[in-house]
């Protein structure tokens, strides 16, 4: 080996060592800090636990008690007793009435669906005379009655047609309470109608009981597991959220550390030792490692959940490969944008105006996750799969949807377009970074940023 090639080799190794030094500092001062441990790891899990456990408890305490009188004008005399019966069962602790075919099944469903009031104590004032309507209506207006229900006599006939129950509540009535009245009235009217037609409600309701269907999923290996449709829906959004959180968190760190280096005036010291490109790639590499840590933690927790729910058969090996490839694509797209913006501004406030449009665009997959994951080959999903900043996020939703396979050519095309765009973005960001790191003063407009990219 000649002298020249030895020198070139030493320089190359020196350059690599500088990039690695920058990357290690970036990683150390981001990931090995209490702030990171708290904000990127503990806080999200804390929030999750809060939502899962604490929030329902807190919300149950906030529902107002339901006490007072409801008036019913029931010319048939059949509905009011059923209503009285239902409220009687709900009275006291607010516990749901007994299950099965009892009159209170609707109230129970309600109780299951929403957070119930701490206590329910309602008396029913029934009358058959429609002439009492005005007086009762006045009492509703004066808040003396919780509600007034006016029963159309035809509503208990075999053919109720357009018959309607009119329910009047004070304008300040809680929507939760109104929901309870509605549910009780519906259940009571149904029972009254069945009884009026001479049928046995208990027998009829058994006839109409929904059949139980035990769905089993058979994996490619022939193993069966209980199909959980709701949980399956979580997989695409789970994958996308992991991608989104991990790339954006480290992207945000990249933005703030770059701004910090500018505002601390340490940038010029660094540039006397490394080139802007070495600095940029070192920072991107360091934050990529931060992102990797987050992937490992969040992905690990997600994988544990998938194993516990016996849904591992829904995560084929190819999906993991896609996740890695799209994660690399997503990270470089987000990181280059953040590094370019960070280099061009002097503080976080200035950065917001430049980052905001990008953030809005990247929120699109979050907003469209349901239609895309339900119909991964639809027009919306296909089109958004080829818009560069959205590609990795939309594609991970599509390939993990597991409802219908995405055409291989589309996966390949999205990779080609996505990585092509990523290379372009890295190139543009590098040129902006080179100019931006030494800029002071008023922040540039997006057009000025693009102009920097064309400077020699």
């Amino acid at each position, binding site marked *: 080996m000649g002298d020249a090639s030895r020198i070139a080799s030493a320089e190359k190794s020196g350059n690599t060592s*500088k990039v690695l030094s920058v990357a290690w500092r970036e990683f150390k001062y981001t990931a090995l800090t209490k702030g990171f441990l708290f904000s990127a790891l503990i806080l999200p899990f804390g929030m999750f636990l809060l939502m899962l456990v604490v929030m329902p408890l807190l919300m149950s305490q906030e529902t107002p008690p339901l006490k007072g009188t409801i008036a019913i004008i029931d010319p048939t005399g059949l509905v009011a007793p059923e209503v009285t019966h239902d409220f009687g069962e709900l009275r006291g602790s607010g516990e749901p009435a007994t299950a099965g075919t009892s009159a209170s099944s609707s109230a129970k469903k309600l109780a299951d669906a929403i957070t119930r009031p701490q206590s329910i104590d309602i008396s029913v004032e029934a009358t058959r005379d429609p002439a009492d309507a005005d007086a009762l209506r006045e009492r509703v207006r004066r808040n003396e009655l919780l509600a007034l229900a006016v029963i159309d006599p035809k509503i208990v006939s075999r053919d109720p047609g357009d018959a309607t129950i009119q329910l009047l509540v004070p304008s300040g009535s809680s929507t939760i309470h109104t929901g309870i009245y509605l549910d009780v009235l519906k259940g009571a009217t149904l029972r009254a109608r069945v009884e009026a037609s001479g049928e046995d409600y208990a027998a009829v309701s058994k006839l109409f009981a929904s059949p139980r269907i035990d769905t089993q999923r058979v994996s490619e290996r022939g193993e069966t597991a209980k199909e959980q449709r709701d949980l399956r829906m979580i997989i695409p959004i789970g994958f996308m959220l992991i991608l989104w959180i991990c790339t954006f968190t480290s992207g945000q760190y990249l933005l703030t550390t770059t701004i910090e280096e500018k505002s601390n005036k340490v940038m010029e010291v660094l540039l006397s*030792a490394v080139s802007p490109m070495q600095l940029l790639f070192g920072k991107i590499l360091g934050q990529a490692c931060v992102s990797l840590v987050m992937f490992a933690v969040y992905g690990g927790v997600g994988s544990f959940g998938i194993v516990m729910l016996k849904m591992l058969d829904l995560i084929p090996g190819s999906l993991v490969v896609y996740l890695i490839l799209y994660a690399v694509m997503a990270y470089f797209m987000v990181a280059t944008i953040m590094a370019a913006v960070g280099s061009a501004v002097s503080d976080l406030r200035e950065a917001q105006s430049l980052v905001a449009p990008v953030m809005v665009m990247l929120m699109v997959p979050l907003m469209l996750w349901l239609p895309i994951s339900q119909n991964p080959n639809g027009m919306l999903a296909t089109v958004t799969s080829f818009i560069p900043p959205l590609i990795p996020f939309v594609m991970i939703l599509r390939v993990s949807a597991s409802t219908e396979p995405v055409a291989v050519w589309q996966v390949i095309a999205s990779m080609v377009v996505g990585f092509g765009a990523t290379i372009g973005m890295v190139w543009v960001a590098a040129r902006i970074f080179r100019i931006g790191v030494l800029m002071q003063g008023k922040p540039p407009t997006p057009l000025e940023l693009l102009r920097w990219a064309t400077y020699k």
Partner: protein
Amino acid sequence: MTATITPRIASMIRPASASGAAIVLTKVDKHFGNTHAVRSLDLVVPHGSICGFLGPNGAGKSTSIRMIMSIFYPDSGEVRVLGGSALENKDKIGYLPEERGLYRTMRVAEFLAYLGRLKGLTASAASKRALAWLDRIALPGVAKKRCQELSKGMQQKVQFIAAVLHEPDLLILDEPFSGLDPVNARLMMRLIDELHQEGRTIIFSTHQMHTAEKLCDRVVLINRGQKLLDATLDEVRTAFDPRTLAVEPLRTEVAGGQFDRHVTSLPGVMGVERDDERENTWLVHVDRNSDPQPVIAAIAASVPLRAIALKQVSLEKVFVDIVEASGETAPPLHGDSTTLTEQG
């Protein structure tokens, strides 16, 4: 607007030979928007020299230094540092920028070791040298402190260490003495002198003329991006020789009348005036065509003296004279709404 170059100023642009020079700038131009920051600058800094880079605020010193460092690139012209570009020779160059910057939460030793690694040192060598330099620069016990805990002067000394840690061949210091108290300024001067004695080439910008006078063997003065002076200190002193004697007689009354009248009558003397700065001292102006030595001898022979000396021009006076002769003080910066940092 350009600086006016009078014939006398033009005579003081005597660049050193470019062969074997540490820094060579050839016809370098730099614009920021509408501002012409550096104009056709030619500069040669010989190897092993210590060069003062002088000029009023906004003259283009920092911009020139940043172009030397390849942090900025010239619009036209050529910059060669240590035979190549600064990018190729970064590890052989130490740089103390005008705007001091440290990682606030990083510990001092760690910060220095980090920059040492970026300058091509191994981690252990960088750490050892950092600790040695902290002792040398009178900052013991700060190694484990966070940079934000240091005073401004201490931070500046830490940055100086960062610039010299890797033992560079070329040291570029932008305002190294600003913000330092007299004790630390003196320490810094001593260290710079020691580094110069070790054979390093040093270029530094400063507003402190007396410091430049003490340290430099060469000075370059620029204003409005234009070079107005480029010469060795001896050349400057010769060219700006005031041809004035400071004379302190034992008494003002001499045989034949008063001191001033007597001395004015001597051959080669143009005039005599009292020195406003020193009591009982007279300034004797020697004719431009006469040798001061016979005049000194004639005064000493005819008047009992306490002291007599040929006055030396101060660099500060040269600076002020040249800048004023060139037509003004520092120009305001007005360029694009967004401007590159330009304070030199």
